[in-house]
């Protein structure tokens, strides 16, 4: 028996691994998923976006009052603030910037969370800007995610109507030298992205009427599989422009980013498939691809724990002899 195991253990492990995943995928029973505080951080930030946006307008109006009362105030600063307030009043439900920065290798983990975030933003009536990070391969993935979410509003409860490109959302596509592009967004978004992914002029699009630069963005969500991707947004989005930043990432790199959550530099963190399933549960996405895959995660993890125990017992027997 032991000899058979030693000769064929690789094939046996592969077969059991495959079986665990397959059985998990055909399971239809509902799995209860409790959202962690990290996941709830992003959910709350998006859920409360209209209130946050209204508070920002009130704050700007207070600043304007003070400036108007100050004789020494710079007229240019007053004009800039007046323009910003009038822009902010166009998008009352807030503006979300979704950065998609992963390649097909991480699609299984990160696409469900990107889709859930898009659907949540659309349901809340937020305007959605989507750009792509360092990897050009993100572009076709992002394009599919956003068009699926815009077309199918019935997969969340309550549903939302069809969302139109250029009006409700805008997909900029890929640009080389992402860091410089992100910084340029602080001056003018239409200068950083003169055209959208399909080559249309962005400045003439209705969505851009209320959006000029980074100050008009209320929340940044970056979904990244690359180490350094979220840091870049923490540097640009949070540190430079003072906007709340949340991140979704593969489970491999998730543990590196918890310190940013603790320091408040990230307002939310979705880690791997588990984070995606938690977010789907909070938003009420149905069908929920990540939640469906959690049964398979459960079985395969149980199998992995069993293997560790068996391996240890076998090691004990071997060393005892």
């Amino acid at each position, binding site marked *: 028996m032991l000899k058979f195991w030693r000769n064929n253990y690789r094939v046996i492990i592969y077969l059991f691994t495959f079986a665990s995943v397959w059985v998990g*995928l055909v399971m239809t029973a509902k799995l209860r998923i409790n959202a962690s505080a990290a996941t709830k951080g992003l959910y709350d930030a998006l859920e409360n976006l209209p209130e946050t946006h209204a508070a920002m307008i009130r704050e700007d109006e207070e600043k304007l009052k003070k400036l108007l009362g100050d004789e020494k105030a710079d007229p240019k600063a007053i004009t800039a603030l007046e323009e910003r307030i009038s*822009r902010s009043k166009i998008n009352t439900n807030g503006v979300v910037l979704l950065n998609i920065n992963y390649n097909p290798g991480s*699609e299984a983990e990160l696409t469900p969370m990107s889709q859930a975030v898009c659907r949540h933003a659309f349901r809340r009536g937020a305007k959605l800007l989507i750009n792509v990070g360092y990897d050009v391969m993100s572009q076709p993935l992002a394009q599919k995610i956003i068009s699926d979410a815009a077309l199918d509003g019935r997969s969340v409860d309550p549903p939302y109507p069809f969302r139109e490109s250029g009006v409700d959302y805008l997909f900029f596509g890929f640009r080389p030298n992402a860091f410089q592009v992100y910084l340029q967004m602080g001056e003018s978004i239409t200068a950083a992205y003169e055209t959208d992914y399909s080559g249309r002029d962005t400045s003439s699009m209705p969505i851009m009427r209320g959006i000029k630069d980074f100050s008009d963005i209320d929340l940044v969500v970056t979904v990244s599989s690359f180490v350094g991707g979220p840091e870049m947004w*923490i*540097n640009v989005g949070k540190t430079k422009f003072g906007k709340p930043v949340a991140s979704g990432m*593969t489970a491999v790199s998730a543990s590196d980013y918890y310190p940013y959550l*603790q320091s*408040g530099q990230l307002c939310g963190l979705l880690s*791997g*498939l588990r984070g995606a399933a938690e977010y789907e549960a909070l938003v009420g996405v149905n069908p929920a691809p990540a939640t469906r895959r959690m049964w398979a995660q459960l079985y395969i993890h149980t199998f992995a724990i069993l293997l560790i125990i068996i391996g240890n017992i076998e090691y004990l027997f071997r060393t005892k002899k």
Partner: protein
Amino acid sequence: MGPDTFIDLIGVWIAALLTLGVYSSLIKDTFISKLTEAVFVGVSFGMSIVFTYYNGIKPKIEEPLVRYYQNLHVDYATVTNAVTESMAKIADAETVKLSEGDSAVVDNIPGSTVFDTNRFFAVLDSALYKQTLKLQSTNDVAVSLQSAFASSEINLKSKDAVMGALNEYFKSYKTVPTSRHFWVLYIFISVLLGLMFITRFFPKHAWLSRFPMAYTIGIGVGMGTPLSFQSQIMQQVQASFIPMLVRNSGGIDWLATFGNLSLVIGTLTVLYYFFFSFKKEDAASRGATKIGIAYLMIGFGASFAFTIMARVSLLIGRINFLQDEWIQGTYEFFKYLK
């Protein structure tokens, strides 16, 4: 989720066979597994080149240069006529009918602000000096002006004031501003720097590639360092200054206190473990080092567990694809075909 068209079906089958090809390396390296690896690398690289051209070189270099050349040779009168016509239409749409005898002074109109000529000029600049604007096209000029004025808050309620200001604007208007000539020079220098990278293929001239390399690294370090220092050092250090005893309305919050204590002890002992300037021979030093190692092991354990979870997620994704899109999708495609 399955294939809708025959082309989709072919795509799904190719993806499924390539997936199985990759997994065949679990048994042993075969021609198929090597082929799938080569296809993956080739397709990724090929796509990268195409996407970089269409999203970087074309909109940022090729198209603006073509527009620059075209706008340099455009007839000045054609452009000013198109602008005048478009502005008249925009002003007509917003003009308030003034009764006879009223002056066309805009600040007399209720709810309006004084006509700001400087802002009007700035909006005209932003509409007419866009790098992508084709000045020969009357329609493009009209669309650009309309969108620029629609997003500005400028009062256009008096056509006389608007047209007067426009005539003033034309006195100094050029189809291509002087700054654009410098911009073209900057583009040429940038392209030249980019091309210098290619000199690495020619050992005799490879030293030239050091210039763009130095430029790129310099820009990256210059732009990134201050922000990284602030967010990855200053703010992280600031976040570790936390109260050792957390109180809430009911007294001491023991859980939060334990968490904060654990964080401070962990930070200090791990830092101490990596401090190699002197020998750690006394009991206190050895104890602190052991605690530091324990924290590191817990951290590595969490990372390793997350890694397994991530790899398993990828496997689940692939098996999900094989089950839903390949097997079930193909079955349903042919079922509906009947």
